[in-house]
């Protein structure tokens, strides 16, 4: 599969174009933003006394917007880099990856007691780094949206799938979403369905998981309703290593 991709000259050109575009975003588009944020900071620091409270508030808003846009550009570059790569197939222990990520999440958020349960023996043949990114985004998402619960539980479960397919799900008992009217937008980049003060983030996690799964020839689907938690189901082809 990978050799077929790289042998295609049109694809090679596309890859090169995408990489050039990403480099342009990374260098040229972020430079003016750095100037906006940097000079706003200089104003804030050097002219705080001359500026009234409202003036300082305007500056803080300028800085927040510039920083948010910068984070979005960084996300765009990372996502572009990810989806520009050719998956490398190998044996992947999804249960092990999930348990590993649970340890990392607990270390990062020691203040929150979250129970994580992982079904044993979820194994597949896929790109290990890419599937790790998918699980990381989904578990991070679940972690975030269970923050309102003291009895938060995240489960990574094996799911039934058709022949030649492998499925697993990341389930949480968090806030859930109202899917009405979101048609397809849930996995769109920078889409947010909660007020940012409640659940921070740029709205890139699900978009990343969705795109990476697609790159692996798989799919992401969701079942959720307000107050009822969420189930994110991942399905990937059960590739043959031979």
């Amino acid at each position: 599969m990978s050799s077929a991709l790289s042998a295609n000259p049109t694809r090679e050109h596309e890859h090169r174009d995408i990489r050039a575009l990403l480099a342009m975003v990374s260098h040229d588009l972020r430079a003016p933003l750095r100037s906006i944020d940097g000079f706003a900071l200089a104003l804030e620091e050097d002219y705080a006394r001359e500026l009234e409270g409202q003036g300082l508030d305007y500056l803080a808003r300028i800085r927040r917007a510039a920083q948010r846009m910068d984070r979005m550009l960084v996300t765009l570059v990372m996502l572009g880099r990810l989806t520009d790569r050719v998956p490398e197939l190998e044996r992947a222990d999804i249960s092990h990856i999930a348990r590993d990520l649970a340890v990392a999440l607990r270390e990062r958020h020691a203040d929150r007691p979250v129970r994580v349960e992982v079904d044993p023996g979820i194994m597949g043949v896929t790109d290990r780094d890419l599937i790790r990114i998918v699980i990381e985004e989904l578990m991070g998402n679940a972690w975030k949206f269970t923050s309102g619960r003291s009895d938060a539980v995240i489960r990574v479960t094996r799911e039934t799938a058709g022949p030649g397919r492998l499925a697993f799900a990341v389930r949480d008992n968090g806030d859930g979403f109202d899917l009405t009217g979101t048609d397809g937008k849930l996995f769109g980049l920078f889409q947010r369905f909660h007020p940012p003060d409640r659940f921070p983030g740029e709205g890139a996690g699900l978009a990343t998981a969705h795109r990476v799964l697609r790159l692996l020839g798989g799919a992401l689907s969701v079942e959720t309703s307000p107050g009822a938690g969420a189930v994110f189901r991942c399905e990937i082809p059960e590739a043959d290593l031979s």
Partner: protein
Amino acid sequence: MNDLSRFTALLVEDNPDDQWFARRAFKKHSPGTNLLLAADGVEALALIGTGPRPDFVLLDMNLPKMGGREVLGALRADVATKSLPVIAFTTPDDDPEEFAGDPNTVCLSKPLDFPRMLEALDRLGLRGTAG
């Protein structure tokens, strides 16, 4: 914070705003540092070859005439500068492992954050020698 006062630093940067931010940061946190400036890679190498030897280099990767990577390559190929401490300003588009094999190079992202630069200089073994 003034423990960089005895040092000479070379900033290799073509963007005038980024030059200004760096100058401002040094003026604020370490006014005693002798901050030299080169606006491209060719100028940087000429300056290092002839002028006062900097104690460390702040190197933008995206430079006109001669890129940051070529500058770093030239520095590492020269006996006199092969272990000169370099802080390379990389972007998320760059490979984070690119300079992993070079113990005298640390990567940071822009904008220049003074406390993080000091940490990086510690890792490069520089500040310890200043006492």
